[in-house]
């Protein structure tokens, strides 16, 4: 069974600084990987996804993520954080075969300081 670890519960970044949120997964084959964002009081919105091919994927709102098979990681990055990026971020992994179930990490809450 697949699993996801997001080692950082909270991260604080200054506005305009770069951001990297960590995600490590466990799965025996090539996984399907997703990053979602949740603003306060809202549901989850898809930022980006990786299925195959280019290991650097671009998403919405200026986010990108890089799949590194050797490190079992799928870290989310943004070169310059805006105050509106303050939210909770979830990494999720899906199995490449069988029914589509996602396993979510426990989330990282991003705080943006002025």
């Amino acid at each position, binding site marked *: 069974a697949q699993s996801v670890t997001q080692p950082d519960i909270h991260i604080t970044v200054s506005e305009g600084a770069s951001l990297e949120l960590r995600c490590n997964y466990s799965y025996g084959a090539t996984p399907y990987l997703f990053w979602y964002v949740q603003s306060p009081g809202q*549901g989850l919105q898809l930022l980006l996804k990786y299925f195959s091919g280019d290991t650097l994927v671009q998403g919405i709102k200026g986010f990108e993520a890089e799949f590194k098979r050797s490190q079992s990681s799928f870290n989310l990055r943004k070169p310059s954080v805006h105050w509106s990026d303050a939210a909770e971020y*979830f990494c999720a992994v899906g199995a*490449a*075969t069988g*029914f589509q*179930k996602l396993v979510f990490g*426990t989330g990282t809450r991003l705080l943006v300081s002025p």
Partner: protein
Amino acid sequence: DVKVTQSSRYLVKRTGEKVFLECVQDMDHENMFWYRQDPGLGLRLIYFSYDVKMKEKGDIPEGYSVSREKKERFSLILESASTNQTSMYLCASSPEKKANQPQHFGDGTRLSIL
């Protein structure tokens, strides 16, 4: 855009009540999911359905049941609500059984059991 609508944003019920949470999607998606979200635990899958009248247990089905009589509607039922079911409940849908299809989420129902 996919629209997943949860009938209530906030709900307060009493211990022992039977509680219904409703979810409707407007994109003819085959799959629908119910999660609960708790601080520090991320999203945990309660039940999912890949077709009308079909349901499968997720990771934490105890104390819950579901109903899918129509393709667009997926109901979560708390048979006898208890205080430990106080949580945020998120509904999601996706178009196919394949794992590479992202899930689309509603805005959530924050349920309090007194």
